[in-house]
């Protein structure tokens, strides 16, 4: 494969990538900002380079500094993790120009799929079902309003360059459309530097179900089952599981085949996630493709036995997929909870601070991916993810019981530090979630009902 890989990320995912590299006998280079000089990945990596100050713009998003570190250390490939430069087509191109393998799809594929309106059009052309909406980005508010009126309310207006739950707004009332569209366009320009917007039908009670795809450089692609990520707060996932409750195997096979078709249609290489919305009739609609390893990839690993990072490395090195679709046999159920340093009582505001206690769960079929430890300081410069707790069990009911047990064992405290652990427990115990009948509205419903009961 490669002899040296540079990990252009931080936190738990940097540790995660370094671990597989070690298992494969690959030398690793960690790049760190001033905040992360003694971070967990530096103890696993073979070499560490200090690339910039805490601000991500000058360190983890600084393409020049990362390429320079790769050249200094002789890295042949760069694993971008998630976030930061992982879906930046310019960075992928710069890697290519320097003869460094970017562990992700080709730059032009990232660019195409990063344009949400174009991705939607490409996938519709490939035969994937999409929600009624504008075929392309719409420029003027009048034609946008016409489209919204013709598809029916509620609609969602989304930034073409958006992602990660940002740059979108739901419009229930036709009278509010013009204001919402104008505001969304201004926000899109401010946040993403791209004011283009598209309009789509909004499904009020839907499930978020995504398909994991792997594609090699030789035109082969497979899907590794699905993940249900319907438990979200502010469009950010907090609990993910597989299999998706309530969907039949035939259903998943249909979605999987659609995702593979879409991946092959755009010449995808590497690990892709196809996100779909599933309505209460079981119909599914393409939403977007994520061109990176996902935070929630471990749930897929737990039921398939496939190490996703290993596959990314092999694909990047030009190997053919060693797995055919018939070799992928998901077994049992897996659930992941994201433990964030944030305060659910204050609208999930991040709570940076110093950890005095950090005890993670253990025991049967319980996996923890984390970079934190007692004495760890949570930096305000980065996202508040502290740990991912993942459990496996033969069925969903046992998996949920195991997760509840694991969260009971988890103890985190520190000056000014709050976590979402109690909130995760509340979600797990909710009858709608226990029955697998929940939708993406679940977290909002829980928050609203707790506010009502306090009054």
């Amino acid at each position, binding site marked *: 494969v490669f002899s040296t890989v540079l990990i252009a990320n931080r936190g738990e995912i940097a540790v995660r990538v370094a671990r597989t590299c070690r298992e494969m006998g690959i030398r690793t280079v960690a790049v760190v900002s*001033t905040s992360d000089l003694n971070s967990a990945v530096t103890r696993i990596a073979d070499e560490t*380079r*200090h*690339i*910039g*100050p805490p601000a991500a*713009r*000058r*360190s983890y*998003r*600084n*393409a*020049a*500094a990362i*390429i*320079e*570190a790769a*050249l*200094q250390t002789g890295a042949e490939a760069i694993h971008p993790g998630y976030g930061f430069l992982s879906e930046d087509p*310019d*960075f992928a*191109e*710069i890697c290519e*120009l320097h003869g460094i393998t970017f562990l992700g799809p080709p730059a032009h594929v990232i660019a195409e799929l990063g344009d949400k309106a174009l991705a939607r059009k490409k996938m519709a052309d490939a035969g994937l079902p999409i929600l009624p909406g504008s075929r392309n980005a719409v420029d003027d508010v009048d034609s946008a309003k016409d489209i919204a009126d013709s598809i029916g309310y509620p609609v969602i207006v989304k930034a073409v360059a958006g992602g990660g739950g940002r740059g979108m707004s739901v419009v229930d009332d036709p009278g509010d459309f013009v204001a919402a569209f104008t505001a969304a366009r201004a926000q899109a320009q401010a946040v993403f*530097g*791209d004011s283009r917007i598209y309009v789509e039908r909004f499904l009020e009670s839907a499930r978020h179900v995504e398909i994991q795809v792997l594609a090699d450089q030789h035109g082969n692609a497979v899907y590794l089952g699905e993940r249900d990520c319907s438990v979200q707060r502010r469009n950010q996932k907090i609990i993910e599981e597989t299999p998706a409750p309530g969907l039949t195997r035939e259903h998943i096979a249909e979605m999987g085949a659609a995702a593979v078709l879409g991946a092959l249609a755009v010449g995808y290489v590497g690990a892709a996630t196809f996100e779909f919305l599933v309505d209460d009739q079981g119909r599914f609609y393409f939403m977007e493709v994520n061109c990176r390893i996902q935070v929630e990839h471990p749930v897929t690993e737990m039921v398939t036995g496939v190490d996703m990072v290993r596959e990314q490395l092999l694909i990047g090195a030009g190997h053919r997929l060693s797995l055919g679709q018939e070799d992928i046999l998901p077994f049992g159920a897996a659930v992941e909870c994201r433990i964030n340093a944030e305060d659910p009582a204050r609208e999930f505001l991040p709570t940076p601070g110093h950890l005095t206690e950090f005890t993670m769960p253990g025991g049967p079929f319980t996996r923890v991916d984390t970079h934190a430890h007692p004495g760890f300081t949570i930096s305000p410069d980065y996202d508040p993810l502290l740990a991912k707790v993942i459990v496996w069990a033969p069925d969903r009911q046992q998996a949920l019981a195991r997760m509840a047990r694991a969260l009971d064992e988890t103890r985190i405290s520190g000056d000014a530090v709050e976590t979402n652990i109690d909130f995760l427990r509340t979600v797990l115990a909710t009858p709608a979630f226990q029955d697998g009948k929940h939708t993406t509205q679940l977290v909002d419903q829980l928050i609203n009902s707790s506010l009502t009961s306090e009054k």
Partner: protein
Amino acid sequence: MTDFDTLYDKVIGLLHAAPRTPKRIEAHVGDASVLMEWHAESAVTGVAAPAASGTVEPVVPSADTADTGHLRYVVAPMIGTFYCAPEPGADPFVTVGEVVSDGQQVGILETMKLMNPLKSELAGRVVEVLVADGTAVEYGQRLVTLDTR
């Protein structure tokens, strides 16, 4: 989008990414290159890589003030390769014992094949040049020790 639109967007992006208003921006589309220049009193030239945007970093050497006493350091403003002289075989920018002024060039930092002048932000007498010519250095690494008495 036309090439012009693309270029326009990139330049606007560069302006947003820059910490101060540049004196000059030069951009080309074919084989895309970008050059940004700031006024000498604020910083020196930072240059973006081919096809890159948002990666422009002005070189602003800063003094490492964590140290007590009268010794201060010129540190690397970015990861790169340090050169003590303008070209191989030439006299170094500074020698031990020499007094440098604020803003005086003390070396070159090469990042991604682009040469950035490394200037001192302090006045003082050179006590030691801490790294050899052509050394790969990290962000924040001490390069030159100055006695600021």
